């Protein structure tokens, strides 16, 4: 039996401490710092690898992933409206969260693969960046329609210059421009510390998730069911797409993870400004209280098995 990942144990520690109302609390400046390192590290890694790829060869993958980012929220929305009986803005906002991706979940999945020495396409962060945005646009259109007065200019600014896009995209560009040798002096900070930083980050995520779980009682079973079943559907779609695009087993799993994960950094900030009437507690409870823990604790091995199965069946 493979021992439990220490990173997952850190998450559980944070979760238990939060549920037990411990006074443990990471200062928000530390949380900011950890997320900056993670985002940059992921971006840099992807950029270094990207330099060795021909970007034109990646165009079909990039286009396919953007289409997936548009389709996932469109699939989630009717379910949220019909089965969840949610208001239009709430359903649209949750759909946007689930169409977009969680960098934290991606980082844990990468650590999971690395610790098992399973290889994957290292340029995946490029697809990660591309998947962040389409769902936000779809979410706003679902809630508002095309004609109404959304301030697209302010929103574009918010989305493209939001922390996660700037750091991921910036990391990609720096990694791409500098290349592996030139990056070595700074690598200790970003690659050497990656797993330690991720562990601390997950400790904090455990605390945050515990806070969201307490509001689950008020919002009921539907969110729990949606927060588990939709990621499974997303993983099926993402894994299938990864296989169709000819990704390796590790890469197929990562695309499944991306499709299964729900954003909790870029989308909440954008939705707060673009759809103020959508209740942020609903989407964050589902994304952080249900889906994030589910993906980390249960989802990753499942998604890997799914990827393996696809490759075995499809050859």
């Amino acid at each position: 039996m493979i021992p439990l990942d220490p990173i997952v144990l850190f998450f559980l520690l944070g979760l238990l401490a939060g549920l037990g109302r411990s006074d443990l609390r990471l200062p928000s400046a530390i949380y900011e710092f950890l997320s900056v390192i993670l985002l940059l590290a992921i971006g840099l890694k992807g950029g270094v690898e990207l330099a060795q790829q021909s970007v034109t060869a990646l165009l079909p993958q990039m286009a396919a992933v953007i289409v997936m980012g548009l389709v996932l929220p469109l699939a989630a929305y009717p379910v949220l409206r019909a089965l969840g009986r949610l208001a239009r803005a709430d359903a649209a906002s949750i759909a946007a969260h689930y169409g977009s991706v969680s960098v934290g979940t991606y980082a844990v999945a990468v650590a999971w693969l690395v610790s098992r020495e399973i290889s994957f396409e290292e340029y995946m962060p490029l697809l990660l960046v591309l998947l962040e945005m389409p769902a936000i646009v779809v979410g706003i259109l679902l809630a508002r329609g095309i004609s109404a007065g959304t301030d697209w200019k302010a929103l574009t600014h918010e989305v493209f210059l939001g922390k996660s896009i700037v750091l991921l995209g910036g990391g990609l560009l720096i990694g791409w421009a500098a290349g592996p040798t030139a990056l070595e002096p700074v690598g200790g900070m970003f690659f050497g510390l990656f797993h330690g930083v991720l562990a601390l980050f997950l400790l904090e995520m455990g605390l945050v998730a515990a806070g969201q779980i307490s509001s689950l009682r008020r919002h009921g079973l539907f969110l729990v069911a949606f927060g588990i079943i939709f990621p499974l559907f997303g993983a099926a779609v993402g894994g299938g797409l990864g296989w169709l695009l000819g990704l390796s087993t590790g890469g197929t799993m990562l695309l499944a993870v991306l499709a299964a994960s729900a954003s909790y950094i870029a989308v909440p900030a954008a939705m707060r400004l673009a759809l103020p009437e959508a209740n942020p507690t609903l989407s964050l409870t589902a994304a952080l209280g249900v889906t994030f823990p589910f993906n980390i604790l249960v989802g990753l091995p499942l998604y890997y098995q799914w990827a393996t199965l696809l490759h075995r069946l499809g050859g």
Partner: protein
Amino acid sequence: MHAEARKLVTIVTESALERRLVNDLRRLGAHGYTISDARGEGSRGVRNAGWEASSNIRVEVVCDDATAEAIAGHLRTNYYDHYAMILYFSDIGVLRPEKF
């Protein structure tokens, strides 16, 4: 020591609104503002500043009565319904009225 009367407008709200709020304040005639990070609990639950979505800011503006009225009116119509936000006034004295 003679102090001129001014209003201190204090706004406690979600940090997601910071940029938009600052633009509003400038437009409504505030000459300056002070922002600090905050956390607390209210009708929209605990906002403990553990991470982005639960962080709060406290915005303080010293201004004349008319500007204070304008700020309060604008925030009430645009933000009160959907955002965690409170606003209150205090009467204060300032030594350099031309600054405010």
